Structure formats: structure tokens, C-alpha cells
């Protein structure tokens, strides 16, 4: 029979080890979702196309993270993409004519939203709407356009030659 004291000591150590592992996981390996209803305000933006934007994608101003995408849905009337994002309450003095664009991190990275502050005197409120938006750039479409334009140029050149 194992001594009672040793047993209790070992079990206590075991539980402490579990808590320590959890704390390590919390602070070293993961991050808490920083943006919640409490410390942030909601802003909506309507895009023509969101590309590969995902929920929890970062929202940045000048490259600095200030919020994250909370919800993505389709507007049932206009069929445009409606993106709801949480912005840090510290950035509450954004002008109401700020614009939002969807950019890509690197060449094949994930999409994120960049907000460019505007110049208006009145500020963006909670549940506000960002009116000026720039849709995501879709590489395939870009290539398609390029090919189309090149073809057009060629035809023009040929027309000139025949003239």
C-alpha cells in the first residue's frame, strides 16, 4: 500500500501539471480572440466580391491589426457580399467616409481587409456602414483581362498594317 501522503502529493502535482500545461497552451501556443462585443464596435461593409476572405480574418489600418471579420453573408436584395467586422474601441475616431478594400497578404497569402481613413468630420458609429469599398482582386480575372487586352492590341496592330 502506498503511503497516503505520497498519493496526495502525486495527485496534486498531476493536477498542477495539467493547469500549467493549459496556461502554456493559452499564452505560448494560442491567442484569445481579442475582439468581442465588449471592447469593440461593429462596422458593416458591402463588397462586390470578397475573394477568399474568411471569418476571423484581420482588419488593418496602415498594416496594423485593429479588428477582425465577424460575419460574412450575402445581401438578399443586391446580391453583394455583406461583411460585418469588429473594430477595436480605441480606433473609434474613424471618419465616416473611410474606405475598405480586400487585399491579399503576399502573392498566395490569405485575404484581409485594409481600411483607409477618409477626411470627413463626422465619425463612423457602432453598426455603421463603410460605403466606399474595393473588391478583392481575383487573379484569374486579371489574367483573363490581360489576355483579352493583348488580343485586342494585336488586332489593332493588324488593322494598322492592312491600312
Amino acid at each position, binding site marked *: 500500500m*502506498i503511503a*497516503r501522503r505520497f*498519493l*496526495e502529493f*502525486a*495527485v496534486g*502535482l*498531476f*493536477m498542477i*501539471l*495539467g*493547469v*500549467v*500545461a*493549459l496556461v*502554456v*497552451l*493559452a499564452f*505560448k*501556443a*494560442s*491567442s*484569445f*480572440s481579442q475582439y468581442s462585443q465588449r471592447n469593440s464596435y461593429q462596422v458593416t461593409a458591402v463588397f462586390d466580391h470578397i475573394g477568399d476572405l474568411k471569418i*476571423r480574418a484581420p482588419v488593418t489600418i496602415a498594416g496594423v491589426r485593429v479588428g477582425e471579420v465577424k460575419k460574412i453573408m450575402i445581401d438578399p436584395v443586391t446580391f453583394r457580399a455583406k461583411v460585418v467586422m469588429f473594430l477595436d474601441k480605441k480606433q473609434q475616431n474613424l471618419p465616416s467616409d473611410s474606405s475598405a478594400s480586400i487585399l491579399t497578404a503576399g502573392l498566395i497569402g490569405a485575404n484581409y481587409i485594409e481600411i483607409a481613413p477618409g477626411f470627413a468630420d463626422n465619425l463612423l458609429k457602432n453598426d455603421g456602414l463603410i460605403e466606399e469599398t474595393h473588391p478583392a482582386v481575383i487573379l484569374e480575372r486579371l489574367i483573363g483581362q490581360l489576355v483579352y487586352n493583348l488580343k485586342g492590341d494585336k488586332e489593332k496592330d493588324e488593322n494598322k498594317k492592312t491600312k
Partner: protein
Amino acid sequence: MFKLIQLIENFGQKGLAFCERVGIAGIFLTRTALRRPRFLRFLPLLIEQLYFIGVLSLVIVVVSSLFIGMVLGLQGYNILQKFGTVAQLGQLVALSVVRELGPVITGLLFAGRAGSALTAEIGLMQATEQIASMEMMAVDPLWKIIAPRFWAGVISMPVLTAVFDAIAIFGGYLVGVEWLGIDAGQFWSNMQAAVDFRVDVINGLIKSVVFGCIVTWIAVYQGYYTVPTASGISRATTRTVVYSSLAILGLDFILTAFMVGGW
């Protein structure tokens, strides 16, 4: 013709027997789990079982998690290298361990290490009529034998899983950063950016609690209702490991399907 009828009869009988067993197991679980807590008298029994079920499982969990983390690091590095995204190794290791490998492999190890021991122990008590004699002395075996083991299993599993997660990530760090030379800052910061504590870590621990319940439930049930012979105990032990492994893998799919919305 007669044989055919007998075949169908056998089939129906098996179905009925199966339903009965599930019913017995369910009643057994509720009678074990839902009893009036007499906490101060229960605690010493619980601590003893926590030692045998939790603390003694620690070694196998620590060793296997270290190696699994290291293998993940090595495999991930070789794949990510092809795309030139080696810096994402931290994310790959952490997400796969925290979401899936941690709870599932800890559960499987737990079923093999602790579940089988529980079944054999309780089964032998049943075979040597210790449990019957306890009942003779008006000591409730469910309270004295089964409940402490059940709760110890439920408590141990998340603790073991948390340890598994942390050490496997450390193993990935050892291989990725110390051996293959990924930048440590990139490794950790990419991991932190990708892993969310509530969505990923806590959901993994919820899985592990469910697995702990299922494994110890199967183990104590198989032990308690074993055929009290040597071969009966050995069959019950085998069944514990097989059923718990299947239950873990099946439930893991269902739980993941529920949790996948949060990603």
C-alpha cells in the same frame, strides 16, 4: 425452412440482448454518476484512483506526445518546404495536435493503459466475489468501487490531454526550430496567430472530457458485468479496449462535425 426461422429468431434475440445491455449500461452510468455527493468521504477514494488512473498514465502520454510532436514537425517540414512556407510549421503542428491528435491519441492510450486495467481489476473483484461480499456488508459497491474510478477517469483525461498538447508542441518546436533551423519567432508567432484559445484549445479539451466519460464508462461497465471466470475477464478486457477505441474514433468525427463551424 426450420433453420431459416431459427436464424431469424437468433438475429432477433441478439438485437434484444443488445438493447438490454445498452439499457443496463445506461442505468449503471446514471446510478454511478448521479448520486448524492458525500464529498469529504468520497475524496480519499477519488485521490487514490486519480493516482492509479491519471498519474501512472502520465509517463506513456508524455513519451508518446513528444515523439508525435517530433514526427509531425519532421513530416510537416518536408511538405511545407515544397511550397516554401516552412514558417507555417508552428501553425501546422499546433492546430493538428490541439484539435485532433491530442484528444484522440490520449484517449486511445488511456483506453489501453487505464481502461483495460480498470476492467481487469473490477472483473477480478467480481470473480472473487468481493463485490458481492461488500453488498452483504451493506456497503454500496457503486459508491465505493465504481464511482471513484469513473470520476477519476473523467477528471484525468482533460489533464492528460492538456499535457499531451503542450509536450507535442514542444516536440514540434524541438525538431522544427532546434534541429531544422526555422526561426523561433516565426514559429511561435504564426502559431499564436492561427490558434484561438477558446475555439481550438477548449474544444479539444471538451472532446477529451467526452472521451474520458466514454472510456471509463465502458471500462467499469465491462468489469462490473463480466462473466466471473478467467476467460470472461480476459474477454471483457479485450472488449473494453476495442469498444472504447471505436467509440473514441466515431465520437471524434461527430464532435468535430459540430465544432467545425467555429473555424
